[in-house]
């Protein structure tokens, strides 16, 4: 996503008056045809932006279903509560301050500006004056951006599932969506120093996925593993309660990703842009397919069984990997980028588990490991990509998100505690935190 053209407001009044004064009546009709085209293109691009944003919003449902499917039945209500609440918190915090930090400009590309609340949208005159340069509503831009923040935060909830306190998590969400995410977002998409460096991240393998995974890793390290996950050095499986739900969640995420990557082309109203959007759709889809097939085959070869949950993670791995550059590769190369993501995710899940870092849904592997892979792949799939710039971007995003998150988690741990009691964990956080069960008609495990 490139730096947005927006807020070129008040300079135009004098120029507008001058232009009106010298305009001859004979030109009026010709100008109005041109204006109509600008009107239409603006409407079309804004419409495309809004619908893409709505698709990305639906990814919140995907994450909810995926996570609810991969935790135990006794922790379902709480993970759903976290998901609906984090989405809402993200929307409010980003509206109050996050968007302005990310896209408000700043003195030197490192320190972002600080302002609050959303500005007014473009007026008709401004848009016509710009000759189509301003090509979508600034509020549609906000809407598209806000759902990305929620995605980054959703990544965290899965990794810390089944043992983190609800209110500690939601407090973290406030800081993450209002501050941590927007600052590094400014560095890249807001036109900050990472952007100036030539770091490429089309739709957020780094800015969204690596960011969320880094925050999740910091949380998991301070939080510790679920009870019964690592007993006397042996890794125990804790099977998810509802694999149909996890599968539905994966398909919803897959669908939402067309908005995530497709919308990040930012424009569809010309033939070139329409072709580019089509390419992004095709590559996004085929990368997911490649990731799924690769993960399914590797799990069959490695464990002797075709593990559905690994296949689901494989599809997401492919999607995360192609997100950094879904436009320049051919569909075959995009499939390979996704497939490598699918292989990486299976290995990462196993080795992260062996390192006794307990991530119930594989979020750190999917979004962190494959986010890094996707960013590195840009250096090979986009002629403008540079390995040094990509590595710098990866290092900066990880260091910032992991470092600040660790501090915030640490403060939360000291002030309110981040982990439920052992008894609450064994009983299930549904009853302990939310006071109700997801499946009251079934006995608990």
């Amino acid at each position, binding site marked *: 996503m490139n730096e947005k053209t927006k807020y070129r407001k008040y300079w135009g009044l004098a120029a507008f008056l001058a232009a009106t004064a010298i305009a001859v009546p004979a030109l009026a009709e010709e100008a109005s045809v041109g204006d109509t085209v600008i009107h239409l293109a603006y409407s079309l691009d804004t419409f495309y932006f809004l619908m893409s944003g709505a698709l990305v919003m639906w990814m919140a449902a995907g994450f909810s279903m995926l996570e609810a499917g991969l935790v135990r039945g006794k922790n379902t209500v709480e993970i759903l509560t976290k998901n609906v609440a984090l989405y809402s918190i993200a929307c409010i915090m980003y509206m109050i301050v996050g968007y302005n930090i990310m896209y408000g400009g700043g003195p030197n590309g490192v320190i972002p500006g600080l302002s609050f609340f959303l500005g007014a949208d473009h007026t008709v005159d401004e848009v016509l004056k710009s000759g189509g340069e301003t090509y979508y509503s600034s509020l549609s831009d906000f809407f598209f951006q806000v759902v990305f923040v929620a995605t980054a935060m959703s990544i965290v909830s899965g990794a810390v599932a089944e043992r983190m306190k609800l209110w500690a998590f939601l407090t973290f969400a406030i800081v993450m969506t209002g501050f941590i995410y927007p600052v590094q977002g400014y560095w890249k998409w807001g036109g900050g120093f990472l952007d100036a460096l030539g770091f490429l991240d089309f739709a957020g393998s780094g800015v969204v996925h690596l960011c969320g995974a880094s925050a999740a890793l910091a949380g998991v390290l301070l939080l510790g593993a679920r009870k019964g996950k690592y007993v006397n050095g042996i*890794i*125990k*499986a*804790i*099977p*998810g309660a509802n694999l149909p739900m996890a599968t539905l969640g994966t398909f919803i995420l897959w669908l939402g990703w067309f908005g995530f990557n497709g919308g990040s082309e930012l424009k569809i109203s010309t033939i070139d842009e329409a072709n580019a959007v089509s390419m992004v759709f095709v590559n996004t889809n085929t990368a997911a397919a490649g990731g799924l097939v690769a993960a399914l085959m590797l*799990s069959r070869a*490695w*464990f*002797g*069984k075709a*593990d559905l*949950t*690994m296949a689901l993670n494989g599809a997401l791995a492919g999607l995360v990997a192609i997100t950094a550059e879904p436009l320049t590769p051919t569909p075959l190369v995009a499939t390979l980028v996704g497939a490598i993501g699918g292989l990486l995710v*299976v290995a990462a*899940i*196993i080795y992260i*588990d062996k390192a006794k870092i307990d991530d119930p849904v*594989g979020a750190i592997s999917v979004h962190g490991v494959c986010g890094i892979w996707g960013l590195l792949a840009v250096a090979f799939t986009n002629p403008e990509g540079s390995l040094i710039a990509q590595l710098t971007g990866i290092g900066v995003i990880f260091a910032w998100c992991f470092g600040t998150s660790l501090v915030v988690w640490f403060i939360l741990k000291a002030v309110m505690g981040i982990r439920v009691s052992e008894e609450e964990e064994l009983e299930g956080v549904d009853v302990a935190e939310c006071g109700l069960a997801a499946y009251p008609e079934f006995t608990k495990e």
Partner: protein
Amino acid sequence: MKKIEAIIKPFKLEAVKDALTEIGITGMTVSEVKGYGRQKGHKEMYRGAEYNVDFNPKIKIELVLAADLVDKVVDAIRDAANTEKIGDGKIFVIPVEDVLRVRTGERGKEAI
């Protein structure tokens, strides 16, 4: 009067029910149970890690009948539930002191 409690593999329920219906048994009580015997539990795999399922799912069939029918019923259950593999289950025969039909208050054999 005797009570027969049969623990069988879940997928054999239909076959056992049909076999019992064929020899004129008119009612039974069925429940989903878990347990293990010589078969022990089994291992399953999730995301590359094994876990033990110590208690296997089984079906328990309970029926009460006149003592002279026991052999015929036990044979029918055994024939229908047998796969000749470990884990096929067990059949228990237990004496019953009395039976009472709630609606009418009939007792003993009449109430079965």
